């Protein structure tokens, strides 16, 4: 049995209340969402918050909806809700494809979108997806809220733009009619973190790529994206040769380090190979194949 260090616990009654509690308890307080990142770290005593502010009662942070030309996910939407959402599937196949390979059903039942974003693990799958779709997040504090593009959200591994007495309340994604999307992940075993994942969308219009987004996780790509590869593809026909060339640029955007998941050369290769595979499927989907 793992034994975390002593900690206190309180259930927030509203977002405002949670923020007030964060202000009251200062640096040593932490938001508790699904707990699937925070609790394992506490059990190993890597994290030792003195106060846990549980936001599981906050219905205002739940729900998936369309608002104008955006998909809006509350911070407390679970992985499972993303996986099973007909609204998200209707617009992007990539949500379902990514969620199918995130963790296992137990983790997906409780782990949340907000928690994943705020955890900001360098191998977080939703970070690749968010970067690919150029999503935004809404961050709230006691004086109001602001919107931050996901491609500016991460300050480094496990570090985000969410400040000490702030909360992430929503994640938003632009709707792109005609876009095809796909997710590719290599893991050592089902339920494991990614050795590398690539999530992409491609909009093909009149035989050329009108828009695209490429997200990469676990390979050290800055802001989980590959902008040079995207720029290269715009205006080009989605031929195998062009997709390969773009994938090569995605590989160049990665800067992996060696660890037990694999050596850096392999991960770089995967960034390229998985981007190519995802682009191929997404382009085909956009063209109605």
């Amino acid at each position, binding site marked *: *049995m793992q034994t975390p260090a002593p900690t206190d616990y309180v259930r927030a009654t509203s977002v405002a209340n949670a923020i007030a509690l964060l202000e009251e308890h200062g640096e040593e307080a932490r938001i508790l969402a699904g707990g699937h990142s925070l609790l394992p770290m506490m059990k190993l005593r890597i994290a030792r918050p003195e106060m846990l502010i549980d936001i599981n009662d906050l219905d205002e942070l739940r729900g998936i909806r369309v608002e104008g030309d955006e998909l809006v996910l509350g911070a407390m939407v679970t992985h499972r809700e993303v996986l099973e959402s007909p609204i998200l599937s209707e617009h992007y196949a990539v949500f379902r494809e990514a969620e199918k390979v995130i963790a296992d059903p137990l983790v997906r039942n409780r782990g949340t979108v907000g928690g994943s974003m705020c955890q900001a693990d360098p191998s977080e799958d939703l970070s690749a997806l968010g970067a690919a779709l150029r999503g935004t997040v809404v961050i709230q504090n006691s004086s109001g809220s602001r919107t931050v593009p996901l491609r500016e959200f991460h300050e480094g591994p496990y570090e985000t733009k969410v400040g000490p007495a702030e909360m992430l309340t929503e994640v938003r994604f632009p709707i792109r009619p005609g876009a095809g999307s796909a997710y590719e992940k290599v893991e050592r*075993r*089902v339920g494991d973190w990614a050795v590398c994942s690539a999530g992409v969308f491609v909009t093909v219009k009149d035989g050329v790529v009108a828009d695209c987004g490429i997200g990469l996780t676990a390979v050290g790509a800055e802001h989980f994206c590959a902008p040079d590869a995207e720029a290269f593809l715009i205006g080009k026909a989605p031929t195998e040769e062009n997709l390969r060339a773009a994938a090569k640029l995605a590989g160049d955007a990665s800067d992996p380090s*060696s*660890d037990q998941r694999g050596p850096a050369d392999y991960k770089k290769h995967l960034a390229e190979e998985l981007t190519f595979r995802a682009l191929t499927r997404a382009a085909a989907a956009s063209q109605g194949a």
Partner: protein
Amino acid sequence: MTAVEEVPISAAGNPIGFGNMKRVEDQRFVRGQGNYVDDVNLPGMLHSAILRSPFAHAKINGIDTSAAEALPGVVAVLTGAALEGIPRPSLLGDNFAWMPTLSYDTQAVLATDKVRFQGQEVAFVIATDRYIAKDALELIEVDYEPLEPVMDAKRAMDPDAPVIRDDKGQTDNSITDVHGAKTWESGNAIGTAEAIAAAEADPDCVVVTQEIMYPRVHPSPMETCASVAQMDKVTGQLTLWTTSQAPHAHRTVYAMVAGLPEHKIRVISPDVGGGFGNKVGVYPGYVLSILGSIVTGKPVKWVEDRNENLVSTSFARDYHMTGKIAATKEGKILAVDVDVLADHGAFNGVAQPTNYPAGFFHIFSGSYDYPNAHCKVTPVYTNKAPGGVAYACSFRITEAVYLIERMVDMLAAELEMDPAELRLKNLLRPEQFPYTSPTGWVYDSGQYELTMREAMRIAGYDELRREQAEKRARGEYMGIGISFFTEGVGAGPRKDMDILGLGMADGIELRVHPTGKAVLRLSVQSQGQGHETSYAQIVAHELGIAPEDIEVVHGDTDQTPFGLGTYGSRSTPVSGAAAAVVSRKVKDKARLVAAAALECSPDDLEWELGRWKVKGDPERGKTIQEIALLSHGSLELPEGVEGHLEAMTVYNPPNLTYPYGCYICVVDVDPGTGQVKVRRFIAVDDCGTRINPMIVEGQVHGGLADGIGMALMELIAFDEDGNCLGGSFMDYLLPTAMECPDYELGETVTPSPHHPIGAKGVGESATVGSPPAVVNAVVDAISPFGVRHADMPLTPANVWRAIQGRPVRVDLAVE
């Protein structure tokens, strides 16, 4: 394959004898009502936690426990220095800081001079609850002076390598066995060298050489190790509830370590949540809970967490092997030679029979007919956790089978011959049994070709090869891997085998109550094998008493006779035989009682299941239940026959039993990512008589999952600073149902001629036999890229690197 004997069915619907029967123990397990060590809670019980070394190799300059002792709730803090101060009235040393291992080495209970592996026990906190004990660990200050860690067995052999066991006055890192030898050899060194040299010089022969690493893995039982010690100061009685696969052997070791009188020690292993060899050794934690109870006068519970289990308890394998196989170009194997560097970690804690310092590795000549085989094994100390015989390895037969089955596949590739054909050419033939192997084993029985052809039939082998050829033409990479294994299990004959001087024979007692219900007392300890069911079936088979009328008692040294425990697949071969023999003793006595009651000569009686009857007058007879009552009643018994109906025996196996099997694995490999998908797994086992086929299949299923795990993902590696890189289940990957296909099982039945019921043991067969099948399949799949060998675990990265021709050392940190 073989027709199942008709067995009568009991009132409860169970076979009165062999056959499928649901496991009795599952009634409590599926209800969540098992009783594990952590479920033991005694009045006034204290809890504990162990401070472990963050360094793999460091000098300890001092330990300050004062802040921990001051924490409210902390009762005591023990250190190595404190233990050195407690005199020990025993033959094995003069204080409690060190304890003997099962291989005549010493191991620190708490480090005194140095720490020698990351995770080594440094201090022991006893407190009123588990959380306080853990909190107190953070308050202990240890002044470490880091030393160069030796994480590579090859580096350990360097003359300038740091000496790990300076406590023993060693000047190098070699391990000396009880006979004073630094290497251990078996087989015919000269004949093998000559045969290989001749083959090298002969244009009609080939020799294949390969370095093969069987990396370090961990058994990872679901229940971690734990103990509750209760020392009664008034009576001097020590009761220890503990996670042990061998309660009797442990009791004797505690008597030696603690200098306590053995009759005052009671070891209880309640339900044990998986062992796989992890719970054979005696760990410092167990000893510390005993010392804690002696010091505090209260019961003390120690329960390891997952990280502690992974980093500090008995690992398995860590064998660096170099194999050489010689054969004719027609595919007749001529000789095999193996050189092994064996990494034993910081203390030599392997748990194998004394005369076999490399376990049963020398069974590596395998299932094939050739005259020359030789191995040389050199064990070394490194700064890694101790252990070495674990994870269902049959005393290192896992390594042996992996070596020979990889070498045979490499030979097939060299000869461009189908690996099935090559095996069929060389398998031992039925008329060769009993077969004396080149390294001296006497295989009892086998019909190897029959078994192999059955596996090929289930697999549709030829069709698979056709499919593979078609796929290759399309650029798809499918692989077919075969493994044919022979194990020697059931240690063992007293004349050859002991552990710490304790012979490996098993006692057993059977008592039939007046109403004909029975209780069987076993020395072996179940960790999931289903003993409570199979042993009742053995007695049922012999005496005709329904299994539900037989209580099987095990896991308590006060209630069971002496024996060495459950590991190395020894329960059925040894204690299973004992159960049959003791039942026959009861049956023989029952005959005398029946004769007295029927007023005839015992010779006039013949046995039918459950009843002695008069020859030629079958209506006249007495059932075993009637005889039980008569035995306890007023019937006048013949001269020399005592009342009651019970017997005991000690079974000394005349030889090991030799289960074997043929496994075929089919994989698909994605060469762009290196991912392996195990598509099919065919396992045909011949374990002799099957007592409960359902339990046999369960054992095989579990073992196959183990093998797939080891082949594809499980690994305990270390970085150069000595950090263990497999300390959690996020890092040490175990397979899930998603990685395991629907197993296709088959059987042949070749009973052991010397075992009373012909059973051979099957607990480890699948773990032993499956890794080479998976690896052979993966290598077969990627052979078009020129790959002949790749070391486990075949993670996507390692497969991809093998395809690129960039193989890696798997046991060190990935670079």
